[in-house]
Every structure is written in structure tokens, then in C-alpha cells.
């Protein structure tokens, strides 16, 4: 067997295709291999392996892109999720939503209430340490452990409710103050609107969503104190391109204002929210497989060619300075002048 091994049968087809070979190989007899060349090759291979790994990691992790648009579609409702503990008994609290439509939403009927002990330490820890099992257990026991009959003097209000998706005001006030209700008038000395917000969010839960009010504690010793939170709600769509799923939920920005008020005003906790017209879209994306492969090829070939060229250049320079003449080998083949020494 000789040259025919590559299927180079002396047919006319093989002959004609062969003339296209743009990669003429040098016969083994004319090429040399040197230890230095081998070391360089190894180094280049290592480098490309490193870069390939980095690229692979980027490819697998994917990237996150943020875009925005004027919110499409016609909105109707929005969900408020709330978990708040107020240092007053449930029986004296009044929950209400009023909005730009002049609708009144009886939040008291939509949210659950239970008597608990006021414990701000647990809530704050829960916020700063995330899913810490110990604090969570402590908070849970401090909040739920006391039965409703026992009464802790504080009220935990929690649940979800649907509201109109427009400018609105959700507030917790004392019964008999602010609204004309046929309820009892509560003693002013029992007013204490200190509170712990365990959660306040709008719309569905998403792991990356950070609600700035979660775990916030506000305390007061005054009976007449007004806590106000001004919320700007930004509709946000989380989209995963790999799974093709998307979730429409809301983020919000908040400013807080609290002050002592006169006994003629209505004390309480007020959440005033408005919806921004521009919505965000956060999408997780991954480069296409083909693009990734092209990139890999680019990197590897770039390193090999570039490395070989630099190696060759060094050899050329070395030869030039020594004013020696040598027969040369093709640099693109990774062999250089100095190798033949």
C-alpha cells in the first residue's frame, strides 16, 4: 500500500478533486519536530482548553438582558400579597382600599387576621438572613404559637387580594376613625401603629424578585402617628428563553414618610400605590449552539494560528540577529526557523 490508502484511487474524479486541495501537506521527510515546538504546542493547547472551558461555562450559565416597553394590553386587576403585624388588637383595626375609580375594597374581608405577640426581632432577622431555619422557626412560633383566644395584643394581617390596577390607597386605620362605620369608637390611648412588614408584594412570586418593604420594622410610641408608604409599581415580565416560559409580575420602588399627627387627623398605615406605564422585561437567554460552536472554533484557531505565528516570528528575529541563513519551513504549519538548530 502506498498513497492509495486515502482512497486516492487513480480515477479521474479523485484526480480532479485533488487539484482543489488548498492544504498541501509537506512530506514527512521535509518536516522536523523539536522539543521546543512540542512544548509550545502543549502550551497553546492548554490555553485554548482554558478559554474553551470559560466559554462553555458562559454558554451554560446564559446571560440576563433587560428591555423595556410601554405596557401592552388592557389591564384590569392586580394582586396584593401582604403579611404585616400591627401592634394593636385585630378587633380595633380597619382595613380598606380606595382607588381612583372611587371603588372601595373591603380588605378586611379578603385578608386573614390573627392575634399574635409583637416581635420585631424575628422579622428583621428573617429579612437579613433569608431562609435561616432557626429564625424562621422562632418567628413562626412567636407569631402563630399564641392561639387567637389567648391574644397577644397585636394583629397579624396576611393574605392576597385583588384590587383595581389603578392609582390607589390601601390603609390600616383604627375602627371608628376616618370612616363612618357603625362600630365602636376605640380609645385613643390604645392606638399604636408600630408594625412589621413580613411581606408586601404585587402579583406572582418570582425567586429573583426583591421587595424593598419585606422585613421592614417601623415603631412608634405615639398614639397619633401616620405611616405612609408611596409605592411606584413597575410591571415586570420574567422570561426564560430556554424553557419558553414567561411570568408577568410587578416590582416596586418605595419611599417612606412617617410623622406624628394631631388628634384631629386619622392615624394609621397607608400604602399609596401607582402603576408605571413602562414595563420591564428581564429575559434569561443562552447563545445559540451554532453561534457557540463558531465562537469556539474562532478561539481555538485564533490561538493556534496566533501562537504559531508569534513563535515563528521569534525564530525569525533570532535568526535575523544572528545573521544566519537557513532554509525555512511554513510558519502556518507551526514550525520555525530556530527549530532546525
Amino acid at each position: 500500500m502506498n498513497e492509495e490508502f486515502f482512497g486516492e484511487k487513480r480515477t479521474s474524479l479523485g484526480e480532479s478533486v485533488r487539484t482543489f486541495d488548498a492544504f498541501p501537506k509537506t512530506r514527512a521527510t521535509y518536516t522536523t519536530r523539536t522539543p521546543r515546538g512540542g512544548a509550545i504546542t502543549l502550551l497553546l493547547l492548554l490555553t485554548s482548553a482554558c478559554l474553551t472551558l470559560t466559554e462553555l461555562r458562559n454558554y451554560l450559565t446564559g446571560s440576563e438582558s433587560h428591555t423595556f416597553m410601554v405596557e401592552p394590553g388592557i389591564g384590569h386587576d392586580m394582586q396584593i400579597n401582604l403579611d404585616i403585624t400591627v401592634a394593636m388588637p385585630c378587633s380595633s383595626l380597619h382595613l380598606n382600599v380606595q382607588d381612583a375609580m372611587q371603588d372601595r375594597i373591603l380588605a378586611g374581608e379578603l385578608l386573614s387576621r390573627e392575634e399574635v405577640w409583637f416581635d420585631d426581632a424575628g422579622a428583621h432577622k428573617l429579612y437579613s438572613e433569608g431562609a435561616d431555619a432557626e429564625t424562621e422557626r422562632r418567628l413562626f412560633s412567636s407569631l402563630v404559637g399564641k392561639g387567637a383566644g389567648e391574644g397577644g395584643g397585636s394583629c397579624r394581617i396576611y393574605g392576597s387580594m385583588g384590587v383595581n390596577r389603578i392609582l390607589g390607597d390601601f390603609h390600616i386605620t383604627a375602627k371608628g376613625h376616618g370612616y363612618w362605620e357603625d362600630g365602636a369608637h376605640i380609645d385613643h390611648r390604645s392606638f399604636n401603629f408600630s408594625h412589621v412588614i413580613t411581606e408586601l408584594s404585587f402579583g406572582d412570586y418570582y425567586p429573583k424578585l426583591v421587595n424593598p418593604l419585606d422585613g421592614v420594622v417601623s415603631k412608634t410610641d405615639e398614639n397619633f402617628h401616620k405611616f405612609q408608604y408611596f409605592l411606584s409599581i413597575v410591571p415586570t415580565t420574567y422570561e426564560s428563553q430556554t424553557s419558553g416560559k414567561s411570568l408577568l409580575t410587578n416590582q416596586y420602588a418605595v419611599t417612606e414618610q412617617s410623622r406624628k399627627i394631631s388628634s384631629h387627623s386619622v392615624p394609621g398605615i397607608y400604602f399609596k400605590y401607582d402603576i408605571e406605564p413602562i414595563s420591564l422585561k428581564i429575559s434569561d437567554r443562552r447563545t445559540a449552539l451554532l453561534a457557540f460552536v463558531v465562537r469556539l472554533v474562532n478561539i481555538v484557531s485564533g490561538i493556534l494560528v496566533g501562537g504559531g505565528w508569534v513563535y515563528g516570528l521569534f525564530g525569525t528575529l533570532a535568526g535575523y540577529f544572528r545573521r544566519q541563513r537557513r532554509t525555512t519551513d511554513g510558519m502556518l504549519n507551526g514550525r520555525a526557523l530556530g527549530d532546525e538548530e
Partner: protein
Amino acid sequence: MGRGSRLTRLDAFTKTVEDARVRTTSGGIVTLVSLFVVFVLVVGEFREYRRIQVLPELVVDKTRGEQLPISLNITFPHIPCELLTLDVMDVSGEQQSSITHGIHLTRLTPFPESKPVSTTSLNVHEDTASHLDPAYCGKCYGAPGPEKDKGCCQTCEDVREAYASIGWAFGKGEGVEQCEREHYAERLDEMREEGCNIAGHLSVNKVIGNFHIAPGKSFSSAQMHVHDLNQYFASTKEHTFTHTIHHLSFGPDLPANVKVQRNPLDDSRQVTQERSFNFMYFIKVVSTSYLPLGTSENSYIPGAIETHQYSVTSHKRSLMGGADKEHASTIHARGGIPGVFFSYDISPMKVINREVRAKSFAGFLTGVCAVIGGTLTVAAAIDRGLYEGGMRVKKLHQG
């Protein structure tokens, strides 16, 4: 240049002498395949280079004193045009009552046919009382008459306007000479079954405000905006504010290549069976511009478009108030005016959609070089692998 020249020594592309070269069929195949790959990739690069991207930017809207153009086209199948009024009010205190300029009311035949009525066949008013004595001066029945006619109410319409201006209910014009002569009451009754289409353009101040379509003439009374609802409720026919919004936009349309949802309210429909029912649309208007390729900050380009997008929330309630039928815990306010209200708010942000080339020419050249170089190098490596592998196998067989 001789062999010893300095340039020769710097040659990074050393050539193998022709004798030492081997050409193989596998090499030929690899070459052809790699040329094909190069061709495909270069075509891809070229298309990427020619592609025009629309990149949205968000800036604070710094324009001042602009008017907000509104163009609308709404059909009410259960209310005659005679009863409908379009008003605009805004926070600057400006009011435009009973807008007719730029707005066309088209009478529609009774629902469900709802075809345009030929206006010549039945005209409610004769606009001018030309058949009358030139010295004729109609009474305004105690209301101040229009100034253009020296306080004379020449037509039934004039009397109605005069009544509305001081907040008197007009009714069907019984005992009013002008209206009886024009057979206003009879014609009104004839039109009871009809529907109405409101279409046209209006321009409002770019501040928070609302425009609404409500029944009856509107007037201001003690800082309150009031509509004369007398005829709407007096009717024996069941008028409702069921409506279809064919089109509602704030400025010209963006070109088709901008990927935004166009006017969200277009082709939306709201139905009610109740006479006293209020539809409310909360609209937030965002300024938007479209800058075609080659636009710079200060030069005017013919294709540039200044327009507005909007987001909307819709709500409805019965004027009777009370608990919502679907959401028992929602208590609606009582009272108000039946009609369709559009409450608009202006966003401080502006979206600029700018056309850009996805790649610069230099980027395109770099891409082409990368494609060619990368592909050929890889092909060379493959080919070399094949060649040397083959040699080894050959040696093995020989050995």
C-alpha cells in the same frame, strides 16, 4: 529583491517548495467543504451587516408646550348622535365642551344592523333659518342668546345651547317655537333607535386630563361639570353606553418594524345592559419618537416620527354603586355621569426608537476575516490529521 534582503528574512508566510508538497483527494474534499462553509458564513455575516436594528432608548421627555393629538373612532350602537357630547377637561382648568370641530358624528341605523344613515334623508336641524324673515329674532325663553346673532335664538339648536349655558334642562322642546317648527321632538323620537359613530381628531394640552363621551349638553355649574341627562333618562327606548373602540391613538403610527404593541384599545368592545353605567379608561401616555437611519440629534429627517404610546387599564361600574357582582368585597361609589371616560396622564419618560446598523463596516470586515481564517485553519488541522493518521496507518501496514 534578492534572497538576502531584509524583507525576505521577515517573511512570516514561508512557503514550502513545490517538490515537498503533497496534494491528496481528502485534502481536496476538505477544501471544497470548507469553501462552502466559508461561503455560508460570509453570507450570514453580510446579512447581519445589512440588518437594521431598532434600539429603544429611555430618556426623560424634555419637550415643552406640546399639544397631545388624539384620534378616535368609537361606535355606540344604542345611543343616537343627538344625545352624545364629547368634552375635554384638564388640570390646567381648560375645558372644551361639546367638541364638534374635527369630529364627525355618523348616524347609524338601529342595532344590530348599524349601517351609516344617509344624512340627506333625515336632518335634525336646519342649520340656518333662511326661509324666515331676515329681520326674524327668535326668543331664547329667558336664556342668554348667542352673541353672533345679537342675542337671538334662530334655531332649536340655539335655544338648546342657550339653555345649556346656564344649566337649564331642555327636554324635548315643547312650547319652543323654533323646535316645533323644526319638528325637533318628532325627529328625536325617530332617532331613538339609532346608534352613533364618533370619529375624528382633537388636540388637547399635554397635561393630566380627561375626555369623555356622555349624554346631553354639558355645562359648568359652581365648578362642577354637569351634563343635561334629562333626555337620556326620559327616553322610553333603552339607551346604553355599550361601545366598540375601533381606534384610539395619540399621534401617528410607528413603522411596522418597531416591535411594540400598537394602540392597545383598538378593536376592543365593552357591553352593558344598564342605562346608568360608567366606563372608565385610565390611560398613561408615553412620548415616543422614531429616528430612522442617519438621524443626528439636531437635524430634521423626513422619516422621523414623533408620536405617543399608551398603557391602559379599563374599569366599569354601575352608577347605582354597591357591591361588585364578581368581587363581593369591592364596593363601587354611587353617583356620577353615565358615559365613557378616558382619563389620561402623561409619563415623564420618553421612548426613542433609533434605527441602527447591527454592525459597522469594520465589524463586518473583521467578521469576514474571522470566518475565513477560522474555518481554513480548522480545515487545515482536520486535513493534516487525516493525512498524518493515514501515513501512520500505512506505516503500520507496511511494518
